[in-house]
């Protein structure tokens, strides 16, 4: 799939609204949501908020941690663990979360959201 064809909008969140290692949901123009996480070291990751196993918008409420060094979030419903960098489910190779590119400065987090964000799988590959 060709990446340059993807149109994106930018959604901004002030850094001060985020608490370290606690996710937050960001409402997207489409009515869906992203789960945004600020880690202990200040880095920020954004993935789709919909739990692929339950179809519920809850990933932002999962526990943040690491598995062998890679930052992760665990689904609050089924406890499946997802890699925050790739969106891949580390407990089930067939499932992944969409990942949204993040640009962060000291005050503001900028999320790039593809216009057709349902097709965001392309961004992760």
């Amino acid at each position, binding site marked *: 799939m060709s990446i340059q064809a993807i149109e994106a909008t930018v959604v901004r969140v002030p850094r001060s609204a985020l*608490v370290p290692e606690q996710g937050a949901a960001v409402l997207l123009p489409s009515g869906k949501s992203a789960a945004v996480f600020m880690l202990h070291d200040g880095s920020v990751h954004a993935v789709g908020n919909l739990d692929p196993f339950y*179809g519920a918008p809850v990933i932002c409420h999962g*526990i943040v941690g690491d598995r062998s060094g890679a930052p992760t979030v665990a689904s609050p419903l089924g406890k499946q663990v997802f890699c925050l960098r790739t969106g891949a489910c580390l407990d089930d190779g067939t499932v992944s979360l969409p990942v949204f590119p993040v640009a962060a400065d000291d005050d503001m987090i900028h999320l790039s959201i593809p216009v057709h964000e349902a097709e965001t799988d392309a961004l992760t590959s």
Partner: protein
Amino acid sequence: MTVPERTLPGKTVPGKTVPKRVVVVGHGMVGHRFVEALLARDTAGAWGITVLSEEPRPAYDRVALSSVFDGADEMSLRLPALDAARVDLRLGVRAESVDRAARVVRTGDGERIGYDELVLATGSYPFVPPVPGHDAPGCFVYRTLDDLAAIKKLCSSGAGVVIGGGLLGLEAANALRLLGLDPHVVEMAPHLMAVQVDAGGGALLGRLVTDLGVTVHCGIGTARVLTDPASGQASGVELTDGTVISASVVVFATGVRPRDQLARDMGVAIGPRGGVVVNEACRSVSDERVWAIGEVACADGVVYGLVAPGYAMAETVADRLAGGAAAFSGADLSAKLKLLGVDVASFGDAHGRTPGALCVTLNDPVRRAYGKLVISDDAATLLGGILVGDAGRYPMLRALVGSPLPADPSALLAPEGAGASGDGGAGLAGLPDSAQVCSCNAVTKGDLLTAITSGAARDVAGLAACTRAGTGCGSCVPALKQLLGVAGVAQSTAICEHLRASRAELYEIIGGAGIRTFTELITRYGRGRGCDICKPAVASILASLHTGDHILDGERGALQDTNDRHLANMQRNGTYSVVPRIPGGEITPAKLMVIARVAEDFGLYTKITGGQRIDLLGARLEQLPLIWKRLTDAGFESGHAYGKALRTVKSCVGSAWCRYGVQDSVGLAIELELRYRGLRSPHKLKGGVSGCARECAEARSKDFGVIATENGWNLYVGGNGGFRPRHAELLVADVPTDELITIIDRFLMFYIRTADRLQRTAAWIESMDGGLEHLRDVIVADRLGICADLDAAMARHVADYRDEWKAVLADPQRLARFASFVNAPAAPDPAISFTVERGQKIPNRPLLPLEVL
């Protein structure tokens, strides 16, 4: 005569020799072991195996039979299934007769099955003395699952009589006790369990059992069973001295006899006291194609009534059929039993029958323990012994039988260091490799060490898989653990990859080092940034230790699991449930109306819970504070339905209303619920209080259950419902309210300190060395001297309790957590929708992204 041949499907391959046929009569524990052993040896498929099982179910663990009164069911007792492709197992099919000349077994349904080799494993039948009335309805025996089911089905109260004070009799007495009857045990011998223990041990056993509510009548016979003239039903027994015990249930546990009728009819040699006479190959001395194993065999003049010798016989015959030359040369009758929670063990020459044997006894009335060692006339070698009340040293002592004494015999009997989990490891280290550690499966220390050092086994489960040790009665499991320790295998208790410590160790580390944050803990004692296993465990420990802090403040908010994170239970669609506390299930109509209004105004689905309160479901995250504002204004508090914490203390109406009630169960339930509300624990905690022995509050299915008595309260601990239901067991009886509360305080605090992550009280007690008895030692007798500490910890909890929800509502920072979106804090999530069923809303089942794929 031609025999209609039965061959196993798939076994007659053209051009190959037809497998030889072995027919096993009886699918009990020993018959089962025989088939397993033969299958393991016969990799070439040389044998076609048919098993006839008179019972309508496959073999089960008869040794653990009594656990059906403690929550076990048939499935949990079942032995591992046999490979159906290789074994033709006929359930509910009895062998009626055998024609040895034709080598044919005739079954109850008339089928004739030919054999090359016939293995008799028919076990025993309960012997019932022919006293008048012994066959009246209401008289039972204690041998099979069906026997126990019949006893269990009884719905009576009052007294129950067990005739026979041996192993079976005491198990039966406990069963009656668990059914709510007052058990009496009648034993002809001068003391209980005369086969296993001597007079001194028997006397202590009698005292311990009496304390548990069993009335013991020793040195007396039963004259007859009394019957109700109208119904013919058993109504009691009359003893030989004229004493009458009224009872609705009579259980005969007066020993067993070999089930050798089939063998007698076949015309093979039978021993003087029954049993098929076999040689060292376990082969009938009359017919070389007939073998007998287990309780139906008479080997060297002895009929064995324990499972371990039967297993050894099963292995012997399997080996012979596979071409080996194994021999059965008698067996060790050592056994460790737990009867009504009392340890009884006897091993080796327990009764000192060896000529010149010397005895060392230690009778400790304070510790309520009796021990006797039998040693050789030169005081150099241990020959056997008896332990009653505390059999912690059994695995070590049994393994020492036949070996030189490593220490002064009285030192071997002395109590183990309080608190330490036994220094038996040192004893084990000194044993020769030939010492048998698991007598059920004849596994020596050498076998175990080989399994450990070869790397094949790294834990108890691994040892069981390699050697079968520990899979019988289980009494050797502590010794297995010690051996692993001796061999230098550190058993991993790490809770996850980030923290190399068990929950109990973490509790000590966090408390001891005064740690207040996860970051501090993980940088000092762990690695990485944690995960969904360690973070909630640490959050729970911090909540238990720092009772004054709010669980959502600072870094701790990020440690909380799904439900604790927003003080509400997350449902499958990402909405939450709200459960206000209704202590003891008592609520005024006015408060009920508040709940109803809130539910209506917020459109919540309502349901009554099993814990006597009301669940309001379908609240969105941003609605939670609004809902709780209404509820707290009306005087409600958090019900902690979301926490690994105290949930409810359920109660019946008790003496205030009920005609049978003897105490105020509602009052006590409310007092307990208010005392322990907010208490964070390794798993959820539930309590119950019933106003009399009828137990309408189902208190015995709770972690702590209280049942009123005429004189006070009985406290039961370790019950739960759920996947593996357990009945709580009696911890203390007839205590006044203040004492009751102190003991529950300690029980809960000790649990919070030492249990594993997500371990409920039942499993916690089970995993304790010494089980309930040890628990009683610690929290009632204060054997470890920690009760003052436990009491202080609970006092801190009670003093520091604040309603978590009220504290959230009062603090804007905490409230900020309840925004639906950072960029639209009060917007309802469009991804959540509902549909209506039976007049209330329920979650819409979304089309899962996974299903789209």
